[in-house]
């Protein structure tokens, strides 16, 4: 592989505490190196910012519910499917882009790794087929466990070790990455037409509470020492007044210590926290709970969060939180789809318009940004839109603009129909903080990479790391006064090198690159009871035989496997 040198850029690499030093980044054989020979290809980054490739900790980009969204929203593609360019595949869709558009758009923004945030285990082959069909970017996927019958059965009896053994088996079978919980207990209750809106609502039949599921999974995760922590979509999402249950759920992480060999420091990642930071008792007196939530997060080292910013777009909501989607459909009367996946999970899909003329949408927009602006430790706070739930991932540059510029926030605030009511219900108008490029790099590079236990691979520019290098047309020493230029620069990288190959130049995709699927292989001593339980359940309950269940190797032709050894 050719050598490349990215010359004279303002390097921003929080993993090494480098903030704007003018330096060269050398690349050889897909890795960052100390130096290269004089024959290396030169990328001139003079007057531009150089960062590691972006790392997205949470997005819904592949799998059955994403595809349900694509299928049942042809209108999402209307007039948004330009003809294919030479050598490239057609791109279509806005909030639920085709796999090709997904890969191209992430690359255009200089992203190297994306975590698919909810993989239904039974459908993991489909998830991997779509991941393989998404060019350029590396991806992993989190199987969902929060409503899994095995997990609930073991944890009801307090059997953390058996839970861990089952988790290890399922992650391996699905070629997954870690432990995702979505509305723990609530989605299982949905099978009876119910939900778990508090941490102590028992799940019908299983007689276990969300609090017990969460605590048990936190313990099992650390028992295994996985690279990533438990990754949770909390209960009672999207309802006024839920900030209290959010803080109560976060408190469950107190007293649990991270135990892993991957440099991860948190034990719980709480995702799309915007949807969980609501005060008020109904949509009439709805207001921001961002301050209360961040006061707790800021003092709790064992936590990381991602924002889930509302971008004020027409989008598509999709979660493994079936009851929430049904509830949402009751509010907006648009179409909905709901899919149950046997013993494991259930998903819902509903289109949603975050309308700047609606007060609630304006407040949601403000809350997402407030959470980022109240954050004290940017290495624990990540930029997401819970793509596509609060907005498409292609809006990250816009979120960055809002976080970096009060002027941009005020301009959007002024465009809201109920501006004054939004100001009354939120704090955004009074916050002057403007994040720096260094802080943005923490939130999109070093932070999420560390949270996923991959800080030696992604999110930094130290020699030995994967050569994912993004160059943005922003002058560190002389930032534009027009915030639109910030958005534009992050939307279309001046150059993006992925695994040592130049894949984007001036915002245009040049190459399909060499994508990889990252999965975690847990090796642990055999647990005969769990093995027997799984075999029995497959004979009795499943529609597929156990031999047909695991993801075959041919579905993951470019694996990057992280081994985890659990001692007996």
């Amino acid at each position, binding site marked *: 592989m050719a050598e490349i040198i990215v010359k004279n850029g303002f390097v921003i690499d929080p993993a090494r505490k480098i903030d704007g030093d003018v330096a060269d980044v050398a690349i050889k054989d897909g890795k960052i190196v100390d130096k290269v020979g004089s024959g290396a290809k030169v990328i001139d980054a003079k007057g531009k910012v150089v960062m590691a490739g972006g790392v997205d900790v949470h997005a819904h980009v592949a799998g059955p519910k994403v595809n349900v969204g694509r299928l049942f929203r042809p*209108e999402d593609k*209307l007039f948004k499917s330009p003809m294919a360019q030479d050598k490239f595949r057609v791109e279509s869709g806005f909030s639920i882009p085709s796999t090709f558009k997904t890969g191209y758009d992430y690359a255009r923004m200089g992203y190297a790794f994306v975590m698919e945030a909810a993989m239904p285990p039974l459908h993991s082959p489909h998830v991997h087929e779509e991941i393989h069909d998404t060019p350029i970017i590396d991806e992993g996927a989190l199987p969902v466990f929060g409503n899994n019958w095995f997990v609930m059965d073991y944890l009801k009896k307090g059997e953390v070790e058996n839970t861990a053994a089952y988790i290890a088996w399922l992650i391996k079978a699905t070629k997954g990455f870690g432990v995702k919980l979505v509305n723990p207990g609530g989605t299982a209750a949905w099978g009876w037409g119910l939900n778990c809106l508090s941490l102590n609502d028992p799940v019908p039949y299983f007689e276990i509470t969300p609090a017990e599921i969460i605590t048990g999974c936190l313990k099992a995760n650390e028992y295994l020492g996985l690279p990533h922590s438990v990754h949770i979509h909390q209960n009672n999402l999207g309802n006024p007044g839920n900030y209290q249950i959010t803080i109560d759920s976060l408190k469950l992480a107190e007293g649990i210590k991270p135990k892993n060999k991957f440099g991860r420091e948190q034990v719980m990642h709480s995702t799309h926290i915007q949807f969980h930071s609501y005060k008020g008792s109904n949509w009439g007196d709805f207001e921001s709970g961002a301050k209360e939530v961040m006061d707790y997060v800021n003092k709790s080292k064992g936590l990381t969060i991602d924002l889930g910013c509302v971008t004020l777009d027409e989008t598509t909501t999709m979660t493994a939180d079936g009851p929430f989607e049904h509830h949402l459909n009751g509010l907006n*009367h648009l179409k909905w789809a709901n899919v149950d996946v046997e013993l494991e999970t259930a998903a819902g899909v509903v289109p949603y318009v975050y309308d700047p003329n609606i007060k609630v949408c304006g407040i949601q927009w403000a809350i997402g940004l407030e959470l980022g602006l109240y954050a004290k430790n940017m290495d624990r706070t990540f930029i997401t839109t819970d793509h596509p739930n609060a907005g498409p991932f292609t809006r990250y540059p816009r979120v960055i603009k809002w976080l970096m510029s009060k002027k941009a926030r005020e301009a959007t605030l002024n465009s809201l129909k109920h501006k004054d009511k939004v100001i009354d219900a939120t704090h955004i108008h009074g916050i002057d903080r403007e994040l720096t490029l260094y802080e943005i790099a923490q939130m999109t590079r070093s932070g999420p990479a560390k949270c996923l236990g991959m800080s030696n691979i992604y999110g930094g520019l130290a020699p030995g790391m994967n050569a994912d290098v993004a160059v943005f047309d922003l002058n560190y020493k002389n930032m534009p006064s027009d915030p639109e230029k910030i958005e534009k620069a992050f939307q279309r990288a001046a150059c993006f090198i992925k695994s040592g190959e130049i894949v984007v130049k001036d915002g245009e995709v040049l190459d399909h690159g060499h994508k990889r699927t990252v999965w975690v292989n847990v090796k642990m001593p055999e647990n005969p009871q769990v093995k027997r339980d799984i075999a029995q359940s497959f004979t009795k309950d499943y529609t597929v035989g156990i031999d047909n269940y695991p993801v075959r190797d041919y579905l993951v032709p470019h694996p990057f496997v992280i081994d985890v050894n659990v001692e007996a």
Partner: protein
Amino acid sequence: MATVTLKPTKVPELMLEGYTISPDTFAGKTPAQIAGLEGREGKIKVKLGDFFEVSGSPGKTATETDIVIAGDCSRVKYIGNKMTAGSITVNGNADMYVGGWMKGGRIHVTGNVHSFCGIAMEGGEILVDGKAENYVGCAYRGDWRGMRGGTIRIKGSAGNDIGTFMLGGTIIIEKDAFIHVSTHAEGGTVIIKGDVEGRVGGQMVKGDIFVLGKIKYMLPGFKKIATVEKEVDGVMATFDHYIGDLGERHPKSKGKEIFANLYVKAAA
């Protein structure tokens, strides 16, 4: 007003997607520039000049521009796509999506139109002397935002799915229609002067339907509440007034539940 004439010179082998045939795109251009405007035939980019001889010249703005297509457009889709002003006359038939997403101006087709005529239309007028296939004034596939304004008049008959998800505007079918009228509608008016087979107003929340002929199969979700005299498109008649769809949700306005109205001409 200034007139541009397009004379068909070649029948497209596949369908021609003629989305640039609109006063908005033609305005201010020379005939040569108009002939150079792009279209699609399947996955291939083509030029309007490959299929039409362009003569005359457009006005400076869409409002000042009339387009006459002097011949058959049975294989030309998207005529008048998103147009905002001016006029288009098709002397012959037109394929799918005539006047789709149209915001203003006038379209007159002297022959028949295929499906999706006036899809998601917001304003302006479409007049078809012949008949229409399916999906007159409907919403785009999957979309819940159908026709919002303007008028579509089909002098002949029409097929299925008229005014699906309609929110406003008027559709007049002067002869018969088949099934699915104003499905999911939340506004607007559909007038059918002939007979309808059935499924009229299914899941309709708001809006009006007038049928001057007969409905062969009424939906059970509609209930007769009165007999009324009404003038419809210049015709005075007595109608049985039904409300529905009782199986749908019923939003409230000023404390009163809202229903869609279906008026069927009373038997003499």
